[in-house]
């Protein structure tokens, strides 16, 4: 019993040390998009703290000043309906704050939804990231490479991820490079990222997708373009080609380690054609784009038994 308590207290101490010292992943950005998001977060934490403190101070003051024990027995509080000016301030100030945050929010939306700032003049590297229960498949169509559960990317180059899923909705997330986006089975979504620094980053599926969800992670390694090119060559020399049969077995539910192939599954099992630009879910005209997508949905049904 005693031992348990010492353990607990030392753990509590650890918490504060930890929280204080090591930067939280999201607040330790390694790319322009994550940086923008981290800045927004810090900005809003700042403004919001002021609001919380103001409310707490007013509350503490009122509780202290007007508690019954401090007042004469015969004190009868007045009947107060409201005051125009007080109300204007109570509405006006929040409106100003919200307006300012909305302004920032809208601006950030356009930034995170396009090629990262400062990278506009470069040709983006396109990588298809598709999830299946409970793995990630990364296809590099230009390089003719496919990997499972790990991702190599060059630094200082914009990367365009094309996301979709062979199964439940998942969410592709590399906290230090930028926020997440869903991968779904009937359309492709796009996520723009870039890495400023070489290093290893954690990536995962953030959206609950069933039994193997907790372990649905992948490793991201960012390296210089030269190292990256070297890796591509090496893969072409050493890895074996990805066949349709092989890919089928990869799709079966379960966990796999890291794997490398030449060629991509896009050749025989292309991504759904339907790209999701602005609300297509409310758009009923896009009717016949499913012809192509039919192929892979069939595959999904027969690997669904688990």
């Amino acid at each position: 019993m005693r031992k348990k308590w010492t353990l607990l207290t030392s753990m509590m101490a650890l918490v504060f040390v930890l929280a204080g010292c090591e930067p939280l992943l999201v607040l330790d950005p390694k790319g322009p998009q994550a940086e923008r998001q981290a800045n927004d977060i810090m900005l809003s934490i700042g403004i919001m703290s002021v609001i919380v403190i103001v409310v707490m101070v007013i509350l503490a003051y009122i509780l202290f000043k007007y508690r019954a024990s401090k007042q004469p027995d015969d004190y009868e509080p007045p009947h107060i309906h409201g005051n125009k000016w007080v109300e204007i301030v109570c509405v006006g100030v929040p409106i100003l704050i919200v307006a300012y945050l909305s302004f920032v929010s809208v601006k950030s939306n356009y930034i995170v939804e396009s090629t990262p700032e400062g990278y506009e003049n470069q040709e983006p590297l396109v990588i298809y990231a598709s999830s299946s229960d409970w793995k990630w498949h990364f296809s590099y169509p230009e390089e003719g490479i496919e990997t499972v559960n790990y991702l190599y990317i060059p630094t200082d180059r914009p990367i365009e991820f094309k996301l979709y899923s062979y199964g439940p909705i998942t969410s592709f997330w590399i906290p230090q490079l930028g926020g997440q986006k869903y991968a779904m089975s009937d359309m492709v979504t796009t996520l723009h990222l870039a890495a400023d620094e070489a290093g290893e980053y954690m990536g995962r599926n953030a959206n609950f997708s069933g039994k193997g969800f907790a372990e649905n992670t992948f490793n991201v390694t960012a390296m210089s373009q030269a190292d990256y090119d070297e890796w591509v060559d090496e893969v072409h020399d050493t890895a074996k080609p990805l066949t349709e049969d092989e890919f089928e077995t990869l799709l079966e539910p379960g966990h796999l380690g890291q794997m490398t192939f030449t060629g991509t599954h896009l050749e025989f099992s292309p991504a759904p054609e339907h790209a999701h630009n602005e609300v297509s879910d409310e758009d009923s005209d896009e009717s016949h784009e499913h012809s192509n997508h039919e192929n892979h949905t069939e595959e999904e049904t027969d690997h669904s038994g688990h």
Partner: protein
Amino acid sequence: MHIDHSQPLEYSTQQNQLNILGFWIFLGAEIMLFATLFTAYFTLEGRTGSGPTPAEIFEITPVLIETFVLLTSSFTIGLGIHAMRLGRKNAMMTFFGITLLLGLCFLGVEVFEFMHYYHVGATYQTSAFTAALLTTLGTHGGHVTLGLFWGTFILLQVKKRGLTPETANKSFIFSLYWHFLDVVWIFIFSFIYLKGMM
């Protein structure tokens, strides 16, 4: 029970007024129900998978008959309520009877229409479009079916008990329900059938 004779019979007691207001609120909920169904339909209309498209399965004749029959029934129930206000029990019962018969015709044609869809390969399971279509039509049709039973019960009660504040109240509420189904049908007719056939 306090009866206020300055009001029409169906509004003449406190409970009657509550019933009518409550029913209006219920119709508000029904509007949301059908609005959701329509949203689903418009979203899924083009998602036909390997099944047929709207233009391939819709046929104008049964739809026109259904529309005509249902609109007429809405008119006859209006006449029924008018007769009720005048205290003419028999006229009212006749109009209600005609309304219910027209409702039955509507249902008959709708069943025929559904069989047609089945034959041309547009079943409940065929595609997102067919599921949305049949659910929307089916929900409306289900309402009509329920209405037929309900209307018959009311008719029997009017026959047995005469025009009391209670039976008048029920008849009036039933007429609101019936008109509502008519309005929903007009939306179905315009935005599902006509739009789909164009």
